[in-house]
């Protein structure tokens, strides 16, 4: 591993709970198995005809005290903190920054329906609940930039460390499949009735997943002597300022956000070994993202492997970018990119390389990952992996 230098922001702990299982090992095993399929969500499929989701199995997390999204977040947060081997004092000093698109919307509506809302119940209390349960006194920020929420959270976490507001940040995202977003996507014609199949010619929309992904990120000084998964080399944000739900067809701000992340990372497109795209399975997103990657990578695009994560776990909304970052860290740890779930027929308008026949060995793991959201809220990050 290269020596850490002042200004580095490194990842020292990971946590995840998803449809693939209750922890990071199950997540990686599920990616390698590549056999996940969505199912009708219990209690929701009756209300939203044809709805599918990649759901976390019942009983994986305790949901007595909190709603599902918060329970997922706590579960993954405890894993990440344990993985980073933080001391009690470090946990007490830690900042917490968590992205969530819907928070506890579902539980709130259920409570209201049952007449049980005497006290106001804040929907977006995921980050507060995690900070409270872990006993962390550091800055606590809740970010709700829809499907890029945890990407925005990652950017804030990096900036908190760089400016010295925190030495250690628990950062990530959490969301649960819920009535409101599921119904809204269905009404907008953005749900696929088969499975989440980004870049496939037959794709018809996305399919929601759920869960939480968490990372412990630290300053070089705080992480000295600790094992690290890699560095958060560069990150960038942009906004289309174009349309509520559709990406700007020019892709200008998507190109800019990728290039700015690369510039902040001190990397060239030729330095990138893997791309984890936003890749939702919606018609326009995938086409515009392929076009954008073509502009960023030029002729080299056909030689850069893409890992289409949402085909495995669905669109996990506010936690999507954190899942991508955990995935990048695991690729670095294992020295390989798992095979993609096979496409039926790749969209010719999306000329990206999606290896599907076996794992791709990686001798170096510089990963560009993207997350885009409704509202044209865009995020890119360059992760520089280390063999842990």
């Amino acid at each position: 591993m290269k020596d850490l230098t002042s200004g580095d922001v490194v990842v020292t702990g990971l946590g995840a709970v998803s449809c693939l299982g209750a922890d990071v090992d199950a997540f990686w095993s599920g990616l390698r198995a590549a056999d996940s399929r969505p199912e009708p969500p219990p209690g929701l499929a009756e209300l939203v005809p044809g709805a599918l989701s990649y759901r976390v199995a019942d009983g994986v997390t305790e949901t007595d005290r909190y709603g599902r999204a918060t329970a997922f977040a706590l579960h993954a947060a405890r894993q990440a903190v344990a993985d980073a081997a933080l001391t009690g004092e470090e946990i007490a000093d830690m900042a917490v920054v968590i992205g969530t698109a819907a928070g506890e919307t579902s539980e709130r509506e259920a409570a209201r329906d049952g007449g049980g809302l005497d006290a106001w119940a804040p929907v977006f209390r995921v980050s507060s609940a995690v900070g409270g349960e872990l006993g962390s006194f550091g800055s606590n920020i809740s970010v709700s930039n829809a499907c890029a929420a945890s990407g925005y959270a990652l950017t804030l976490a990096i900036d908190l460390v760089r400016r010295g507001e925190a030495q250690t940040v628990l950062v990530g995202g959490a969301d649960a499949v819920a009535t409101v977003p599921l119904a809204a996507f269905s009404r907008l014609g953005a749900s696929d009735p088969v499975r989440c199949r980004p870049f496939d010619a037959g794709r018809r929309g996305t399919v929601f997943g759920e869960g939480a992904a968490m990372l412990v990120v630290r300053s070089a000084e705080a992480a000295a002597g600790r094992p690290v998964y890699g560095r958060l080399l560069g990150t960038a944000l942009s906004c289309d300022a174009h349309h509520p739900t559709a990406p700007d067809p020019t892709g200008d701000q998507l190109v800019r956000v990728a290039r700015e992340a690369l510039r902040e990372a001190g990397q060239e497109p030729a330095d990138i070994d893997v791309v984890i795209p936003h890749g939702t399975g919606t018609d326009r997103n995938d086409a515009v993202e392929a076009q954008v990657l073509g502009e960023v990578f030029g002729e080299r695009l056909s030689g850069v492997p893409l890992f289409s994560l949402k085909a495995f776990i669905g669109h996990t909304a506010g936690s999507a970018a954190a899942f991508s970052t955990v995935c990048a860290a695991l690729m670095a740890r294992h020295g390989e990119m798992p095979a993609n779930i096979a496409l039926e027929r790749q969209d010719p308008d999306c000329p990206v390389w999606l290896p599907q026949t076996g794992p791709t060995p990686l001798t170096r793991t510089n990963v560009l990952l993207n997350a885009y959201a409704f509202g044209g809220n865009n995020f890119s990050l360059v992760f520089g992996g280390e063999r842990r």
Partner: protein
Amino acid sequence: MTARDRVAEAVVTGVGTVAAPAGTPLDEPWFDYRARLGPRGYRYLPDACQYLLAAAKGALVRSGEDLTGSTDPAEDSTAPLVGFAEERRAAVIGTNSAVAALHADIAETVRAGEINRLSPMLTPFFSVNLVASRLSTEHRLKGFNTTVTSPRVAGLEALHVAACELTAGRSDVALAGVTEAFDPGHGTAAAEAGAVVLMLRPPADAVRPGSALLRTSLRFVPPAALAREAGRRRADREVREALEALVGLGPAPERVRLVTDGSAVAAAVGATVQDWSTGRVLLSVETPGARAGALAPMELVARDLRAGAAGAHLVVAVAGEGNVAFASVGPCRTA
């Protein structure tokens, strides 16, 4: 890391507000978007989005003028942004309840088996960040657009995040603030409706006289920590450090306003703030009852900015979930 590292700074060059007239029932229509925004293009926006756009327009119209409003504002709300490249303009908006009513409507419609009756115009706003994102479309804010949502402090949280990101160089100008709309699930808490937006610049930038300097800090008190002596001591220390850091960077505040929610965390933080203030600064406890949103502390910040006092004014907001946010406004060093 020092307590001062946890203070963010920005220059306030404009402030805009939307508030319901006193005594207005918030669950009834009270805001005339046509009068504040114009006749076309705003009808199918959620209330919170209309409030936000109008408050932002107010902040921009007043930008560069005396924040107390003693000079005539510019007519053109786009003019203050002309000097900034679109990709260097940003927005950071806090909210708790901007789309709570829409969520309730969607859930009720779906439960009634009428999903096809959901409005294609309004339904996308189920995603709370679309409220702030509309601000980007309106003013070509392409730098970034961030929505923050911590209970009861999201407005001050937005100011802190905006100040941090301006300092980090991620934009040259930011519209930052809060918007809330009537939450039908407000329960025993008082519902909120309205918006406050500040136009912010990096602290190092030269500014016109009449601007104000904003300082913010975020703290967190884990509620369960208050059950232990060590936790209570730590909570007390955190609050005192934040107050000292804010005061240490500028003139002593003339007044501290505390926005609480009646929780155990608020009681603990309030006790520390009161003890720290005694003999030093006037303390007032504002809105002691719980409120269903993050608007109240931002309304106090806006009031302090418009009062244009010679000294700094400090607002402290506390949520039972543990979030504590501090914001002080005072004269600019360059003024």
